[in-house]
């Protein structure tokens, strides 16, 4: 979930309210599903103070910026919805003073581009930092680490219009990227520049790479990797900037540019349009003026909303709630609610998505909890009931119940147990080798206890009931989960006879007839280990643990142990 840092003065100014009480601030943030993460009010100047806020809604990128979050809080309080007249749409044509030409050559690699120009006031330090943060959050979280969306910011003064967006041979084009002083080809950037290395996977192996140049052919940027050190460096004090968004997902590209444009408008910039002329057709036409409003109206019946919320709202109440959320909503028949999504939002996938905005607009405190009335019978799973019975028997035999993690190392689960790791379920992308395998037996856990508990008074008698993962080529997943009981006794006289007596008592009390058959499991001493058979089927094993297992775990006390598949015992 994205976390942003906002400048206190800037944020309060945009929200139109100054908070001093943390609790009240936290309360107000809930309408944006935002949580206060850090706000150190002890620092001196509020001009310098920053607030860290976590945004929970991954589908509302408009809230991941100072202006966007402030807008939501402001609208909720004032019920006034800002207007952004600079948006073109299918129904509204606008003339644009700037133009970007998108060539066919880029269609196969990174086809979509949107952009606009912001003017009218010099960029302050706080503002610049905020813009960079918004740019990064959008590209990283919403833009899937720049694959879907990336954003470039440029100083207008240096650009010769129109700007060109085209596909080029990555070995034939070179320029000086930001954070560098030498000229590099695109492929050199991917191999050597830190940003190139970080995002190389998006372009690697493509014959053609995207490039943005001005009319004179000077490079603006190499989307989505890096800007040029000349035309692509924005500084504090710049008053006219060009912002472009490129990517593989058109609605996300258009939405990101809309979010940035609305944010800058809220902060007092004039927004000017950019006309993007594609050499190919796009869902918004081949010549599109950005910022572009592409969202469709959505609607939900009031009855559906009331049914979902358990409420009995009148139409007026529902519309007012939506207004507080910043949504232009209306109804023509008193039954169906129509919503025109705001320019900066595209999260209405289903009509029910409107219902949540009604809920927040009305206020959570207005919904009184209702005691459920449906009668249902509660019950545990059969295996849980059976396991509890098994546990009570084993506890009666003097065993201490243990519980272990299910992930571990090949060393503990296989090597020390004297078995091959072949049969174990292995993780393809482990974080560390300590958590690389899923266990196939409770015994390594019980042995781990022995290895760290030599000082605990003997006898040690331990058991665990828990899951194991076993490979099974017959199964759809090739792996099945089973509920096992593992048990171990360790003391100077621990031997086969003891564990055999305990298994006998256990099986008798469970009402299970069983036979034993000599087994040959490398974890146990040969000739002192048996498979447990119920109706001819193998349900487990017990015996004396092999001294090589004990040695591997650093255990100097004899151990006898066993494991049984409780799910097999439960059957029939």
């Amino acid at each position, binding site marked *: 979930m994205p976390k942003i840092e906002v400048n206190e003065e800037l944020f309060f100014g945009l929200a139109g309210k100054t908070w001093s009480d943390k609790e009240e601030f936290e309360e107000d943030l809930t309408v944006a*599903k935002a949580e206060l993460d850090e706000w150190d009010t002890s620092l001196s100047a509020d001009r310098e103070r920053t607030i860290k806020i976590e945004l929970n809604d991954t589908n509302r990128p408009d809230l991941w910026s100072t202006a966007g979050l402030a807008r939501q809080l402001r609208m909720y309080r004032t019920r006034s919805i800002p207007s952004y007249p600079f948006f073109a749409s299918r129904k509204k044509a606008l003339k644009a003073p700037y133009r970007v030409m998108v060539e066919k050559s880029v269609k196969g690699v990174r086809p979509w581009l949107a952009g606009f120009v912001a003017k009218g006031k010099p960029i302050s330090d706080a503002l610049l930092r905020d813009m960079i943060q918004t740019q990064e959050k959008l590209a990283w979280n919403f833009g899937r680490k720049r694959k879907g969306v990336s954003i470039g910011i440029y100083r207008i003064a240096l650009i010769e219009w129109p700007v060109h967006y085209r596909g080029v041979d990555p070995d034939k084009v070179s320029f000086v990227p930001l954070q560098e002083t030498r000229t590099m080809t695109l492929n050199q950037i991917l191999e050597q520049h830190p940003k190139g290395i970080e995002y190389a996977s998006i372009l690697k192996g493509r014959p053609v790479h995207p490039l943005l140049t001005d009319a004179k052919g000077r490079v603006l940027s190499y989307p989505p990797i890096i800007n040029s050190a000349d035309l692509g460096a924005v500084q504090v004090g710049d008053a006219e900037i060009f912002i472009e968004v490129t990517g593989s997902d058109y609605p996300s590209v258009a939405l990101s540019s809309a979010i940035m444009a609305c944010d800058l408008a809220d902060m007092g910039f004039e927004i000017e349009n950019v006309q993007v002329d594609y050499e190919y057709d796009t869902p918004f036409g081949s010549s599109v003026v950005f910022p572009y409003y592409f969202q469709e109206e959505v609607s939900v019946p009031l009855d559906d909303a009331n049914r*979902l919320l358990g409420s009995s709202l009148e139409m007026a109440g529902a519309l007012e709630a939506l207004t507080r959320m910043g949504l232009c909503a209306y109804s023509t028949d008193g039954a169906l609610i129509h919503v025109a999504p705001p320019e900066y939002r595209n999260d209405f*996938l*289903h009509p*029910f998505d409107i219902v949540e905005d009604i*809920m927040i607009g009305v206020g959570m405190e207005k919904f009184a909890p209702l005691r459920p009335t449906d009668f249902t019978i509660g*019950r545990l799973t059969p295996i849980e009931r059976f396991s509890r019975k098994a546990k009570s028997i084993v506890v009666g*035999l003097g065993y201490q119940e243990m519980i272990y993690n299910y992930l571990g190392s090949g060393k503990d689960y296989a090597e020390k147990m004297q078995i091959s790791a072949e049969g174990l*379920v292995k993780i393809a992308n482990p974080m560390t080798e300590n958590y690389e395998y899923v266990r196939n037996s409770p015994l390594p856990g019980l042995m781990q206890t022995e290895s760290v*508990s030599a000082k605990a008074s003997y006898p040690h008698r331990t058991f665990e009931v828990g899951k194991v993962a076993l490979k099974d080529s017959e199964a759809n997943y090739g792996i099945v989960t089973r509920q096992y009981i593992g048990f171990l006794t360790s003391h100077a006289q621990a031997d086969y006879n003891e564990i055999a007596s305990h298994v006998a008592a256990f099986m008798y009390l469970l009402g299970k007839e069983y036979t034993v058959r000599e087994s040959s499991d490398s974890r146990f001493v040969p000739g002192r280990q048996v498979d447990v058979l119920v109706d001819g089927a193998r349900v487990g094993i017990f015996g004396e643990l092999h001294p090589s297992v004990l040695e591997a775990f650093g255990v100097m006390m004899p151990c006898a142990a066993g494991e049984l598949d409780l799910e097999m015992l439960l059957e029939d």
Partner: protein
Amino acid sequence: MIDQSAARALHPLEVKIILAFSSGDIIDSARVREKLGFKEGQDQQAFSWLVAKGVLEEADRQTEVFYELTPLGQEWHDEGTPVMRIFSLLRESGPLSLPDIAQKLGFDQKTVGSAFGALSKEGVCAMDAPRRAVLARPELPQPLLDTEALLDAAAAHDGSLPETSLTPQQKALMAQYAKKRGAQDAPFRIAERAKVLFRLTPLASEYREAVTALGMTGEELGAITPEMLEKGTWKQGSFRPYNLQIPPARVIPGRRNPYVEFLDSVKDKLVSLGFEEFDGNMVETEFWNSDALFMPQFHSARDIHDVYYIEEPTHAKFIEEPYLSRVAAAHEHGGNTGSRGWQYQFDRDFTRRLILRSQGTVLSARQLPKAKVPGKYFGIVRCFRYDRVDATHLSDFYQTEGIVLGEDVNLRTLLGFLEMFAVEVAGAKEVKYVPGYFPFTEPSIEVHIKHPVLGWFELGGSGIFRPEVARSLGVDVPVLAWGIGIDRMALMALGLNDLRELFSADLESVRMRRSQYKIQ
């Protein structure tokens, strides 16, 4: 004056000494054994207890010398001395060379040499022309038989002869055989033991008075034995009172694990609220773990670094239909769910990718196709996360999740359930609800509670399953979905502050752990 409880606490051995001797008497082991018939060890036990009580004090200390049989001495006693055995051998076999003797008796040359020397000196043996030992006399002379007598005497005294019991001749003989310490080739070892003489202090009379007043004899009955019960001998005596303040010996009981018991208590609580338990595979597919929950395949939370992928096999053989097609359609364009979908090409290969279940909601999704209406289901299941393990993160841990299906369930009944969990499961006094976000629910609610000890914290997340989720899995009624975090409550209930401790392998700490939670 000695009070009765102090007198009552005396051991019978102590009582007997106090009654048999008077203040100022000097006693030692021998005297006590002789007079009271104490067995070895009993005297020393009684002395140490009485010294501790101040009834006895050390009066004098003398060193006594004992001759103890060594293993060699014991062997000589059992099988005969080398002298004796060579004598017998020669008598039976006639003349033999010294090496032959050594071989037949299993002696080394040195032993045979010195024994032959001793026999020659006494004129019992001689060497003939072919250098064979021959017997010169038919019986052994007295000096050689004395050694045998000494060994017998020592064996009769438990292998230990006091120096004071030896005649001057025996002492002289012993000087040949006994060494001070360690010598393996000697039959006797010299041991010095301190003999302590004790004096009864004036306190002894005080005890005696108290003991007499109580009618104690030292003959009181100790442990009640089956024999005593069988013969009824207990009827003739009185029972010795025990010291009841002695800390009891530790026993190690078999017992349940307190963390598992805590989880069980939550399960029982949910069952009591009408929920039926579900369970499932630890290994799951991307389909059930995320796709069925309407998380777009490009979602940032579905990164390689957020779930654990299985190395082999990599993919499930199939995903159950019609759910695969319906879910794919919901992602692509909404299908029949009323949604416009995520508008991308659903990857039917990726959806079969095997992973370790990362959220308990998988099981809620899997339950939907077979769920009853109305129905309530829950599970407390192990989930796996790509997290660095520390005090607040584990790579595998329990999640508590569930669903409620019903014609008439809605946001307010959801809040009703959350309130019920907050009060019944978490023991909360105050509850508040805030809007939340989960990809699979709309609307989504977080529930925060004010816990009597922990203060305000987020108990869980919940919502109403999106139609893209419920309808794709064959459910047309609203489905409330919820998950509650019980780890913090578990830590508190067990007096811990590190999640790793919940799964501790340390036996002693698990044995000693006590749960402090109250079942509501």
